């Protein structure tokens, strides 16, 4: 997998991306008292045709990253190049037209479909607003899309509430596919689904990637799922990427102490292996992104922390071939 990505070229490049959400006080005169530093300086790129996994615990900023890349949140700082164009500078109509090339699949299949629109209207809407198809042609394309995601094309006139979670997620996928995008941000697309349905969706996403040459940013909290579907994986902690490498190296040669702890914390569905596993149990909780710890953000929970970690934020540097890590101890 690691070999296929090199000669395809970069599709998305993120430089110094920051997204702060202001905390305000006062009703008539609002003044900013602080920021939630949800995403605090990210640098990475996504190659055409690959799946980049973005993994981290709740509140680490992984979903915000996805939404900021797609300009659903405007970045506080930094650049997002999509095929060489800086999305952060695009506005209004120009940005709206770019959306044809980049789409999103959401976590909650119950919340992400408009309950008052039929499936046909939901999937047909992107075709309409981007002037791709109208009328009969639109209807045909919608039915074809339903078939592509494994749903019965006769379902066009039904409403979202008539479907199960897994089926709704397929509708969401069909909507994202409608405009034939190059790039899809999958924001925890399976977290809300039952185990047996999760595998259906993962397989579907893999099949579609092959069929339509899609590039994915796959965001999830479950490292086993991320590792399964991704070519490369970025591990996030409190608004920063702490380690970025390919799927094999991440599992066989994790360098950052947080990655190590995360890997060891994930249970493996095999009682014989579980019996022998030694766990690195982190103490304490994830600190607040409003006042992140000084220096390295992980130093409050890090078993290896030394003095410098409290003072200096480690640089995100390449330590091996395509293996990036931000840690003083490595």
């Amino acid at each position, binding site marked *: 997998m690691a070999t296929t990505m090199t000669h395809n070229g970069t599709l998305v490049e993120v430089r110094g991306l920051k997204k702060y959400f202001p905390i305000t006080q006062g009703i*008539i005169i609002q003044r900013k008292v602080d920021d939630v530093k949800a995403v605090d300086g990210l640098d990475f790129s996504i190659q055409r045709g690959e799946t980049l996994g973005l993994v981290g615990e709740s509140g680490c900023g992984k979903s915000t990253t996805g*939404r900021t890349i*797609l300009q*659903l949140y405007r970045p506080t700082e930094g650049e997002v190049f999509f095929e060489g164009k800086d999305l952060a500078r695009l506005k209004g109509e120009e940005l*709206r*037209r*770019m*959306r*044809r090339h980049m*789409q*999103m699949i*959401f*976590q*909650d299949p119950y*919340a*992400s*479909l*408009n*309950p*008052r*629109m*039929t499936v046909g209207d939901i999937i047909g*809407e*992107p075709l309409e*607003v*981007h002037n791709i198809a109208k009328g009969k042609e639109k209807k045909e394309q919608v039915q074809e899309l339903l078939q592509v*995601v*494994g*749903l*019965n094309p*006769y*379902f*066009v*006139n*039904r*409403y979202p*509430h*008539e479907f*199960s979670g*897994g*089926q709704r997620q*397929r509708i*969401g996928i069909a*909507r*994202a596919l*409608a*405009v034939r995008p190059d790039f899809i941000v999958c924001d925890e697309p399976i977290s809300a689904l039952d185990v047996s349905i999760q595998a*259906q969706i993962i397989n*579907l996403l893999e*099949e579609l990637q092959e069929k339509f040459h899609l590039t994915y940013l796959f965001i999830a909290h479950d490292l086993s799922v991320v590792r399964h579907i991704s070519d490369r994986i970025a591990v996030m902690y409190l608004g920063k990427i702490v380690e970025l490498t390919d799927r094999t190296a991440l599992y066989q040669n994790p360098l950052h102490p947080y990655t190590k702890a995360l890997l060891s914390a994930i249970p493996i569905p095999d009682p014989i292996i579980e019996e022998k596993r030694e766990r690195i149990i982190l103490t304490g909780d994830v600190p607040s992104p409003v006042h992140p710890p000084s220096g390295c953000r992980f130093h409050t929970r890090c078993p290896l922390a030394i003095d410098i970690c409290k003072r200096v934020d480690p640089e995100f540097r390449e330590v091996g071939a395509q293996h990036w890590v931000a840690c003083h101890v490595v």
Partner: protein
Amino acid sequence: MTTTISLATRTSAPTLKRSPSPWMRIALRTLRNIPALIGFLLIVAFFFTALFANFLAPYSYDKQDLDNIEKPPSAQHWLGTDSLGRDMLSRLIYGARSSAFVVLLVTVVNLALGIPLGAAAGYFGGWLENLIMRTTEILFAFPGLLFTFLIAATIRPAVLDWARSNGFADLARSGYLDYAVVIIALGFVGWAGLARFVRGQVLTVKEREYVIGARSIGVPTWRVIGRHILPNALAPIIVALSMGMGFIALSEGYLSYLGIGLQPPNPSWGNIAAENFGRYWRTFPQFLWLVFIPGLILTLIVLAFAFFGDALNEALDPELVD
């Protein structure tokens, strides 16, 4: 990829049949509730009476029968006559027309002001929101009804004077300007509540994932508001409107009762009650019920709208399964 289609193996075969729209399901669910159904029928009867008052009423509302003055009910005048010999039943029926006219127009004023202002405040935020919301708060600082009375009492003489001195004396005399005064007074105060409500709804719906989803596929802003936000915010707004209509009918009754609303001979349940109350309280106790019938009708109208709105509110939960 046959996957979920196997769902069909034990259930019926899928058809292209259109599922009942959410609005249809809501209507059916609402009317399954008995008080709501009764309320709905009363509301229908109210508007029906208003619309066809000229066919339903045996006499005109201002026709005087000088041979029958202050008469108790008879075959000729089912509810009797007042001190000017007017048929009370006819006046009550025409009262529905006045009431419905005011209710509908005030609602239109509320909608025209409340929805755009509320939606703009909710969607765009910033100074616009501040301006609109602070204005509504100023309006709210006064006790609602009292404020309405104050406005009606202040602008009524001014409007009538203006009309008389500008060659609209006939119009001033006809009493149509009274309708305008009542509608302005109620509309001026009423939109604020609706605007606040709409803003709240828009704020909630704006953050829903399907709205972000719509933006992510590149739906233009006006279409996001029109197709994704408003239809989903509309349901509770309709409930608020339904409940509000009962209140408007009641307020018109109050204004007219106090003499700052609709003036006789134009009939209003409020002024009918007032006329009969003032005149016959001691000497003609048989006319007491002429005070109570308009009051009773108003009460029923308020309850009807409330029950209907309440059931509607329950039925509007989109997650509810039939």
